[in-house]
């Protein structure tokens, strides 16, 4: 019996394993730090237009940046589509040069000075607030006011989110590590509520679980599409406040890609008129190329003045920002 079972087992196991082997048969593998609800449709559009088979791995931008770093030369990713410039900057050593036409189509502020990544859409940090409870005038103009007792337990933040992390990096560059740590500890001691991402934070405001939250401006519009009566609005902060950072989602091509041409094609697609209009119409982000209309009813990108921090410098800060968030107790 044993002599029969052993070879049988080996055969069946081998067949079962090889049947599910599969492997990398995609023409392009994208690591996307932007969530599927926002960009899934856009990537499908690219698949249709380019006739390429695309695999997407969705996650948080910082998580995917750490994954790319861990994978090193073995990374299956061809392209990193990040929610913010900081996560791209953090892995800039693993990125190859972006095609010149892509770089040149976006303003200098929104691309790597050394040409390894390019921003594709702009976004502003805001304080989103519950409109049943507050008039806009009651909402603070600076994030530094949120450590006040008046907001105890009523503020939501999403520490795992790359845009939040980029804002903390910008604050460190703007007002220094010490004041940033003090602010974070103040938020923690003021019982700030922690969420996984921007959408959860905005929804919690809508439900009345919290009063205000620190998020990117466009999630509100995404949720309003499902629930037009959502009792949430955005408050743009005082000019130059760290909380008013204007950041860019962007794209980088990995040096280790074996699909260089397809990757470049995806990057070119993201700065094409069609994709830029998608950002403006569907995700309510600021298009970064000339000639595409910004989303209706929003201030123009040029009117939003964030802290005087270059986006290209955020990348070097990510490691230490994550460490700081961890030390303050926002990770575990």
């Amino acid at each position: 019996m044993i002599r029969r079972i052993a070879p049988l087992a080996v055969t069946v196991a081998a067949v079962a394993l090889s049947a599910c082997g599969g492997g990398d048969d995609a023409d392009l593998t994208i690591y996307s730090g932007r969530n599927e609800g926002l960009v899934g449709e856009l990537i499908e559009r690219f698949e249709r237009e380019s006739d390429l088979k695309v695999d997407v791995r969705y996650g948080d931008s910082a998580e995917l940046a750490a994954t790319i770093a861990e994978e090193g030369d073995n990374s299956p990713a061809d392209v990193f589509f990040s929610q913010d410039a900081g996560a791209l900057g953090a892995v800039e050593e693993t990125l190859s040069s972006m095609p010149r036409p892509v770089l040149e189509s976006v303003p200098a502020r929104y691309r790597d000075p050394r040409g390894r990544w390019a921003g594709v859409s702009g976004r502003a940090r805001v304080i989103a607030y519950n409109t049943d409870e507050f008039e806009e005038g009651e909402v603070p103009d600076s994030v530094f006011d949120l450590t006040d007792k008046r907001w105890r337990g009523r503020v939501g933040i999403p520490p795992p989110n790359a845009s939040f992390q980029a804002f903390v990096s910008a604050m460190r560059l703007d007002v220094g590590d010490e004041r940033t740590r003090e602010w974070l500890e103040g938020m923690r001691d003021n019982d700030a509520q922690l969420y996984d991402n921007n959408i959860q934070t905005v929804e919690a405001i809508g439900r009345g679980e919290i009063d205000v939250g620190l998020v990117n401006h466009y999630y509100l519009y995404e949720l309003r599409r499902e629930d037009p009566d959502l009792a949430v609005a955005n408050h743009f902060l005082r000019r130059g406040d760290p909380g008013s950072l204007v950041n860019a989602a962007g794209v980088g091509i990995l040096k280790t890609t074996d699909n260089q041409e397809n990757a470049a094609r995806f990057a070119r697609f993201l700065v094409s008129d069609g994709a830029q209009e998608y950002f403006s119409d569907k995700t309510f982000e600021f298009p970064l190329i000339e000639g595409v209309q910004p989303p209706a009813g929003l201030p123009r990108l040029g009117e939003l003045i964030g802290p005087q921090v270059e986006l290209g410098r955020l990348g070097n800060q990510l490691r230490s920002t994550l460490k700081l968030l961890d030390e303050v107790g926002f990770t575990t």
Partner: protein
Amino acid sequence: MTSRRPPWALSILGVAAVAIVCLPLVYLVIRVAGAGPEAWGVLERPRTLTLVAKTVGLVAAVTAAAVALGVPAAWLVTRSDVPGRRFWAVALALPLVLPSYVLALALLAVSGPGGLLGTGTPALTGFTGAFLALTLATYPFVLLLCIAALRRADPALEEAARGLGRTPAQVFRAVTLPLLRPAIGAGALLVALYSLADFGVVSLMRAEALTRAVFLQYRGAFDRDPAAVLALLLVVLTILVLVGEQRARSRLGTGSRGGRTVRAAPVVPLGRWRAAAVAFCAIVTGVGLVLPVSVLLVWLLRGSPSLDGVTSATLNSLLVAVAAAAVTTLAALPVAVLVARFRSRWTVALERTGYAANALPGIVAALAFVFFAARHAPAIYQSITLLVVAYLVRFFPQALAGVTSALSRAEPKLEEASRGLGRGPAHTLATVTVPLVGPGLLAGAALVLLSTLKELPATLILRPSGFDTLATEVWTATSVTQYSQAAVPALMLCVLAAPAVWLLVVRGSRGLDPLGN
């Protein structure tokens, strides 16, 4: 018989299977040993201590509550005249079809501001929510094991006690409960291991627990060594639970198991307690089964959930679950044959080592495989093969327990008799061994299938890019709080899980015992 040397091929296969099972743990230890002092610093933080305390608190509370629900329920459906007792025996076990994170989702949906029950109810999040969801998800383990034990127990003892004029309560305390101790112990161990390893519920409920901390640390830090250190801490906690249970068991003794009794136990009339007993069964089934299924149905009917991707997610789920069930059962087979037919010190040691995966929560196995494959095995990194291997490691003990108990039912004497009567090995295999062992193997495979369908953390971390399963679809819907989008994949999961659960409920709890006793 026992002195026979096992064939080389069999030994090699058995050792290879156990080696694969041990690989993640070994690699994790290597990785942590090579980590810098900064990574170890995570252990010195006061927060880590709080985290351990809260995890232990949650596990202890869930275990106690699952026993408190499971034992009376088992007694009611086997010993009392509660109306509809056959119905309740099945209905009370049915929450097993629901993945625990779906239960959590349902509790979140009905409570708190904006909940389906109205805004007045407090939000069931954090510890309370995780405690409720985990208790409802795990009490069926205790229930099934206790029902089996009660059906097996000789009713003579209880009859004698009653004949001596003891009240039903006294009989329960003095006779039934001691009889049930081994079953309660095994059930409590399952519950404790499950809640210690649970990732989905504590994440959805935003409850503080080690699994979630490991994941957050993995996701939220550039340096992943601290996540590995925390993962190892979780392994240590799990080992402590296993060791503690072994100690308790050896102190208590295993109790008399007895043969299967043909005689039915006497029915205890509940009298004026009948209504309360029915209410108890109805409330437990209501909250654990009817409520979550209703929530899913409400979402399904109310919203317009898109069916995009559900078909491919269903096929993917089935593909990996069937592959995992087949591969895991086959991998367990040589080890089980070695210990059943060639029992010796080393084969027993091999089997014990195979159960080491009990100490490996899904999130830990996933992390170890990600670390290992990204650096050393790029060919299978982010492949379905690696995912199936991770399932194999994670659910090897279930398969091993199932296969071992199935083999123990096929007496070697029967095979020898068949061979003695001139039948060839193949003929013997087909006409004697397979019919005897087959149903047990299938039950073991069904359990692995069920566990794989519901598995979340390893699937999330190890799946190939763009490879969605029903479990990951539910997860994705919840991460952007589009709960209603979770309805279709969640219901689909229940439908797929139903046959496997049915098999478990009908065939009894064999194979549920985590240590294969």
